[in-house]
C-alpha cells in the first residue's frame, strides 16, 4: 500500500466525488460524505509523513507508468522534502474548509462539496507531479473547480472576481505551456531522448543563453501571477473578498503556494543561470510586494481584503527567501509558506464565522465586539499576532530565517524587508482595535460567540501555529536534505558562472 500512496492520495478524492455524485442526492448527505472523505484523505497523509525518510534528499514514493508513450509522457509522481509539507497542508486545510462551510454554504451544497473534493485531488496532484505534462494538466485543471466555487457561491461581485481570477492565472500559465514544449524539444535535441520528465530535464543545463532566459521568463510570469508578486497581484483581493469562506481558505492556504513551489521546483533547477541573473530583479519585486502589500492593507475598509493584501506581503517574504539561494533563505521560505497557509487560512475561517452572523465585512460596521464574543476575540488575537510574526508562533521563525537568508545574500533588501515587520503590526492591530475594542457598535445584532463545532475545527490550526513556533524542527527536518541538494546545485553553478 505504501508504494503507491501518492496515487491513492490523488485519486481517492476524485473517486469519492464521483461516488457522491452518483449515490448521494441530498445536500446534507453529500456534506457529511465529503467531510468523511476529506478526513480519510488527511489520515492517509499521516503514513506518508511518518514513513518519509528525512535523510534522503531525492524523490520518495515514486511511481512511474507509461501514459502517452509516443510523446514520452509518463504518469510520474514522487514527493521530496520541498513538497511533502504542502501535501499535508492541502489535505489539512481542505478537511477544515469543508467542516467550516457546513453552515456557510446553503444553496446547491452537492455541487460545492464535489467541486471541493476534485479541487483537493488536483492540488495534491500538482505538488507531487514529476512529469511536465501531468503537472500542467493538474495546474490548469485546478482552475475550473476554483472558478466555479468563486462564481457560484461567492459574494456580490463574484462573476467579475471569478472571471478575473480565471483569465489572470490562465494568461500566465499559457506561456508556461510553450516553455514546457520548447524545453521538451530542446532537451530532446541535446540528449536524444524526448521526455517530459522534470528530473531529467532539470538535470540538463541549457547554456544560460537567450533560450534559458526566455524559458525562465515564461515560467516566472506564470508563477509570479500565482504567488502573486507585486505588479500582477490585483486578482487576489477580488478573488478573496468574493470567494466563500472555504474558497478563500483554500485559495490563500494552498493555491498561492503553488506559485512559490513552482519557482522552487522549476525556475531554480531548470534555469539556474537565468535565475541567478534575475536574482536582484526578483528580490526588488519581493521587497516592493512586502511594503506595498502592507501599506495598502493598512487603508482597507473590508477585513477580508485587508487579509488578502497581507497575504501579498507575506508571500513577498517567501519569494525573497527563495531568491536568497541559501539554505536558511529557502528553508525559511518553505516554512513561511506552511505557516502562512495555517495563519491566513485560520483568519479567513474566523472572518467567515463573523460574516455568517452579521453578513458584513466592513470594519466600520463593527466595534467593541470583544465583550460580546470573548472566545472568538482571543482566538482572533492569537492569529493576528501570528500574522504579525510574534515569536512563539510559526510566522516569526519563517520570517526570521528568510531575513537571515536574504541578509546574507543582499543585505539592503533584507533591511527594507525587515521594516515590513512594523507595517504588519500597524495594519493588523489597527484593524483588530477598530473591530474588537472601543465602544460596542449597537448596529450589530445576533452576534453569538463561537459554538463547540467551530472551536473544534479551529483547534488543529491553533495547535499547529504554536507548534511551528515552539518546536519548528518537526517541520524543517523534512526539508533539510532536499534544500541542501538544491542549494549546492545552484551554488556550484554560481561559482562556475563568475
Amino acid at each position: 500500500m505504501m508504494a503507491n500512496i501518492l496515487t491513492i492520495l490523488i485519486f481517492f478524492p476524485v473517486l469519492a466525488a464521483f461516488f457522491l455524485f452518483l449515490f448521494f442526492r441530498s445536500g446534507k448527505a453529500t456534506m457529511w460524505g465529503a467531510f468523511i472523505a476529506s478526513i480519510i484523505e488527511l489520515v492517509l497523509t499521516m503514513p506518508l509523513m511518518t514513513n518519509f525518510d528525512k535523510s534522503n534528499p531525492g524523490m520518495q514514493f515514486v511511481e512511474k507508468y507509461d501514459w502517452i508513450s509516443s510523446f514520452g509522457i509518463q504518469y510520474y509522481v514522487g514527493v521530496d522534502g520541498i513538497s511533502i509539507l504542502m501535501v499535508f497542508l492541502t489535505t489539512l486545510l481542505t478537511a477544515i474548509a469543508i467542516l467550516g462551510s457546513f453552515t456557510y454554504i446553503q444553496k446547491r451544497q452537492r455541487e460545492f462539496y464535489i467541486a471541493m473534493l476534485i479541487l483537493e485531488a488536483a492540488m495534491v496532484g500538482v505538488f507531487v507531479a514529476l512529469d511536465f505534462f501531468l503537472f500542467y494538466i493538474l495546474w490548469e485543471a485546478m482552475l475550473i473547480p476554483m472558478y466555479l466555487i468563486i462564481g457560484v457561491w461567492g459574494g456580490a461581485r463574484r462573476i467579475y472576481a471569478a472571471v478575473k481570477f480565471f483569465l489572470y492565472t490562465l494568461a500566465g500559465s499559457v506561456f508556461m505551456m510553450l516553455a514546457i514544449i520548447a524545453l521538451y524539444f530542446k532537451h530532446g535535441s541535446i540528449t536524444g531522448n524526448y521526455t517530459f520528465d522534470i528530473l531529467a530535464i532539470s538535470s540538463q543545463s541549457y547554456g544560460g543563453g537567450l533560450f534559458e532566459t526566455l524559458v525562465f521568463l515564461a515560467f516566472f510570469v506564470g508563477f509570479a501571477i500565482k504567488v502573486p508578486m507585486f505588479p500582477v497581484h490585483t486578482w487576489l483581493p477580488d478573488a478573496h473578498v468574493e470567494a466563500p469562506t472555504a474558497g478563500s481558505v483554500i485559495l490563500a492556504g494552498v493555491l498561492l503556494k503553488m506559485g512559490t513551489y513552482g519557482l522552487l521546483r522549476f525556475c531554480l533547477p531548470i534555469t539556474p543561470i537565468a535565475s541567478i541573473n534575475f536574482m536582484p530583479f526578483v528580490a526588488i519585486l519581493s521587497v516592493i510586494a512586502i511594503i506595498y502589500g502592507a501599506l495598502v492593507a493598512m487603508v482597507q475598509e473590508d477585513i477580508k481584503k485587508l487579509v488578502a493584501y497581507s497575504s501579498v506581503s507575506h508571500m513577498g517574504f517567501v519569494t525573497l527567501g527563495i531568491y536568497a539561494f541559501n539554505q536558511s533563505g529557502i528553508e525559511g521560505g518553505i516554512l513561511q509558506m506552511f505557516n502562512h497557509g495555517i495563519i491566513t487560512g485560520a483568519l479567513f475561517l474566523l472572518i467567515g464565522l463573523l460574516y455568517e452572523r452579521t453578513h458584513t465585512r466592513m470594519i466600520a460596521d463593527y466595534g467593541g465586539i470583544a465583550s460580546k464574543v470573548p472566545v472568538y476575540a482571543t482566538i482572533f488575537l492569537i492569529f493576528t499576532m501570528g500574522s504579525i510574526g510574534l515569536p512563539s508562533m510559526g510566522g516569526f521563525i519563517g520570517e526570521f530565517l528568510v531575513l537571515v537568508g536574504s541578509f546574507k545574500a543582499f543585505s539592503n533588501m533584507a533591511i527594507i524587508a525587515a521594516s515590513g515587520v512594523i507595517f504588519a503590526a500597524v495594519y493588523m492591530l489597527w484593524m483588530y482595535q477598530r473591530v474588537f475594542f472601543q465602544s460596542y457598535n449597537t448596529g450589530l445584532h445576533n452576534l453569538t460567540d463561537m459554538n463547540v463545532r467551530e472551536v473544534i475545527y479551529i483547534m488543529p490550526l491553533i495547535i499547529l501555529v504554536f507548534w511551528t513556533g515552539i518546536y519548528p524542527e518537526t517541520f524543517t527536518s523534512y526539508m533539510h536534505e532536499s534544500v541542501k541538494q538544491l542549494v549546492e546545485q545552484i551554488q556550484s553553478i554560481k561559482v562556475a558562472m563568475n
Partner: protein
Amino acid sequence: MGQSIVSILPEILMTIFGLMLIVIDVMSKDEKKSGVGYFGIAFILLTLLASVPVGGFKIVGFDQMLVWDSYAYAFFIVFAIAYILTTLGSVDYLKANGINKGEYYTILYFSIIGMMFMVSATDLSVLYLGLETMAIAMYIMAGFNKKDKRSNEAGIKYFIIGAFSSGILLYGLTYVYGYTGSTKYSVIAEMLRTNGVENLNIKLGLVMMLAGFAFKISAVPFHMWAPDVYSGAPTPVTGFMTVAPKAAAFGALIRFVMVALEPASVQWQLFFSILAVLTMTYGNLVAIAQNNVKRMLAYSAISHAGYMLIGLVAANDLGYKAIALYMIIYGFMNIGAFTILGQLKNKGIIDDERLESFAGLSKKHPLASLAMLIFMFSLAGIPPLAGFVGKFYIFSAAIKSGLVWLAIVGVVNSAIACYYYMRVTIYMYFKEAEYDASIEMKPASSIATFIAVVFVLLIGVFPSFFINIVKMMIV
C-alpha cells in the same frame, strides 16, 4: 485493374449502402423516418470496419489518381464520427421542427462519399469531383428547412458564394494544369521541382486554388459566408458542417500542398501563416462580441480553423497528424455542443439561442449544463479535457518547426477565447433564470451528448489510443 477497384472499395461500398438507404427511406412510414438514420449509422460503421487499412499500406488506384491509405482512413473516421453524432443529435430536432424527412440522412450520407474522394484524391480532377459532390450536398443541407426563412437564406448564401469560390478554384486549377502539363500531384511536383516556382506564372493558379481551399475551411478573408450560413442552417446540420466538410477540406488541402506543392513550400507557408493569424484573431475577437450562442460557436469554428492552420504551416509530419487529431477531438466537442444547443427550447419571447436563455440552466438541467460546461472548457483548451490535447499537439508541431511566434499568437488567442466560452458557463451557473428556457433531452440526443462527453473526457485523460490512430498517417 484489380488494384484500382480495391482502392475505391470503401467508396463503392458506401454508394451501395447509400442506394439501399434511399430504398429504406421510400419504404418507411412518415413517423418512422428516423429509422433511415439508424440504418445509416449501421452502414457507415460496417464500411468503417470493412475498409481498415491493415498495417498502414497504400493502395494506389487508377494510375495514381487516388489512393486509399491510413491517411484517408483517419479522416474517414472523422467523417464517421460526425455522421453518427449528427444523426443521433438531429432525430429529435427534426421531429420538433416538423422536417422529419428521410432525405436528410441520405443526403448527409452521400456527402460523406464526396468527402472520401476529396481526401484520397492525388489528382486534381478527382479532387474537384469530390469537392463538388460534398459542396452540393451541403448546399441542400444548409437550406433543408424549407419553411424557415433563415434556412433558406443560409442555403442561398452558401450556394452562391460556394459556386463562386469553386469557379475561382477551377480557374486556378486550369492554370496549374496548363503550366505543369498534368493534373497528377506527382507530376505537378516534378514540374515545380525542375522549373522552379518563379518563372512559370503558375503563381496566379496557385493563389486562386489555395483561395478556393481557404473558402472551404473558412479562413478569414474568405470566411464571410460562414457565420451567416452556420447560424441559418438547422442546428445539427451546423454541427456537421463545422466538422466534416472542414475536415475533408483540410485532408485534401494537406495532401495537395504536401505532395503537389512540396517544392513551393515557402510560398504556401507564407500564404497560410497570414491566413492563420487573421483567422484566429478575427474569429476570437468577433465571437466575444456575440450574444447569440449559435453565432458565437460559428465564429469559434472559424477560430479553430485558424488553430488548425498553424498545424498546416508547421509543414512537418507532426503538423498534419496534429490536424487530424484536432479534427477528431473538435468533432466530438463541437457536435456535442450543437446537439445540446439544438435541444434548447425557449418559451420566452426571444429566439432560443440567445445567451440569456442559458441563464440559470444548471438548476433545472444539471446534467445537460454539466455536459455543456465540459464542451465549453474543452473548446477553450483547458486540461484535463480533450481540447487541450489537440491544442498541445498543434503547438508542439509549431514549435518543432521553429514557428515560435505563431505558437505565441495561437496561445494568446486561446487565452482570449476562454472569455467567451466562459460566458456561457457564467450564464448557466452564476446567473438566475430570466426566461423559462428548458432542454428536454430525448433518448437519441442524450446518447449523442453522452458519447461526446465520454470521448472528450477519455481523450483528455487517455489520448494515447487516438494518437496511435493518427501516428500511422503518412501523406
